[in-house]
């Protein structure tokens, strides 16, 4: 079918992803592109266990994500592609600009040096630089934690 949502969320596979977005968008495949989880079988088991009935979870490193993206985009599944940080999403977008048209910022949480933009979005210099790169590349980026919440455009965040 297509990749129906590209989301950046540092909580990775959690309720907002599998229920909040997954259910209304009829998602049946989540691809988690994260270099740490891709090499950690016990964490993969945890995330698989937490996926609801009928939802398949695939784990990939950034390199594997770049290689696999065209295939997922053409597969019959309705896929939600998830990264834990902006840099990974920027890498995917720069490798396949046409396949990553819109990016959803769902959760970048507090860390020292980050400033609150929204209750679920804290940006530091590294995140702002990554978002600037996406903006210059022409990607459509908006923050929205759940489908029923208002979307906030990138221009209102930077």
């Amino acid at each position: 079918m297509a990749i129906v949502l590209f989301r950046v969320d540092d909580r990775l596979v959690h309720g907002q992803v599998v229920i909040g977005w997954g259910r209304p968008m009829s998602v049946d495949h989540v691809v988690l592109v994260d270099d740490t989880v891709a090499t950690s079988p016990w964490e993969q088991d945890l995330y698989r266990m937490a996926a609801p009935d009928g939802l398949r979870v695939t784990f990939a490193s950034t390199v594997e994500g770049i290689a696999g993206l065209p295939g997922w985009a053409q597969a019959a599944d309705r896929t939600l592609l998830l990264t834990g940080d902006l840099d990974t999403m920027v890498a995917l977008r720069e490798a396949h600009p046409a396949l990553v048209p819109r990016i959803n910022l769902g959760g970048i949480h507090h860390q020292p040096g980050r400033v609150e933009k929204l209750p679920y979005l804290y940006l530091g210099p590294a995140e702002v630089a990554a978002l600037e790169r996406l903006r210059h590349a022409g990607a459509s980026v908006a923050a929205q934690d759940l489908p029923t919440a208002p979307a906030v455009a990138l221009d209102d965040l930077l």
Partner: protein
Amino acid sequence: MGLSPRWQTIIRLYGVQAAWTYERMAGIGVGHAAAPMLRDLFRDRDAIERRAAVARSAEYFNSHPYLAGIAVGAVVRSERDGVPGGAISRLRTALSGPLGALGDQLIWTGEVPALMGFTLALLPVVGWWAVAAAVLVHNVMRFRLTRWSLDLGLAHGLGVGAALQQSWLPRAAKDAQRVAAFAVGLALPVTAAWLWLDGIHEGGEVILALVLVGTVLTLAPGTRTRVTGLRFGLALLGAAILLMGGW
């Protein structure tokens, strides 16, 4: 004679979100819940070690509140086993998303709507007894789940992920959601008929037409991000007030 540290922790797990913030989420509450067991664990050891463990336990954490005991138990057991602090923090982080997703399925889209659906469906027959029974059943289940969660974490420490996978919980989460879907489906026509017959008596066709329009708006791709049942209800309420006044 005071409560044992385990029982103090079980009680404190009920208030794990009391100091919830967007920065640390339930971190402070988890630290508060773990404190009695950590105090007991480090009773004869260096106070600096104990304080480091308490500080670690109060860092950022978010999961479903009913399942937070799994993380608390696993952290306490890992501290007891002498696991390095970095590995303990990694375990907490890794548990956060899956415990949230599982708990949301088991409780928020499973047990709670199932109970409320059956309660609504039973109201016309048994009245407020159905409400009392729902509260009782929920709290018995809540207590058993809280205690089980803590004990699972305490028993398995760093291996809690594998233990969780082999437990009844993932299967129950899937089953609870099916029961909930049935119960809510059952409740909607029964509650509509009961409220209409006992409180309104007329305008059934208008109400049905409005429900149809509202449901389409809440689900259609173009409007579903903006129209919720609450917003639709408030809009109807405003329109009704205007029409009543003949304004």
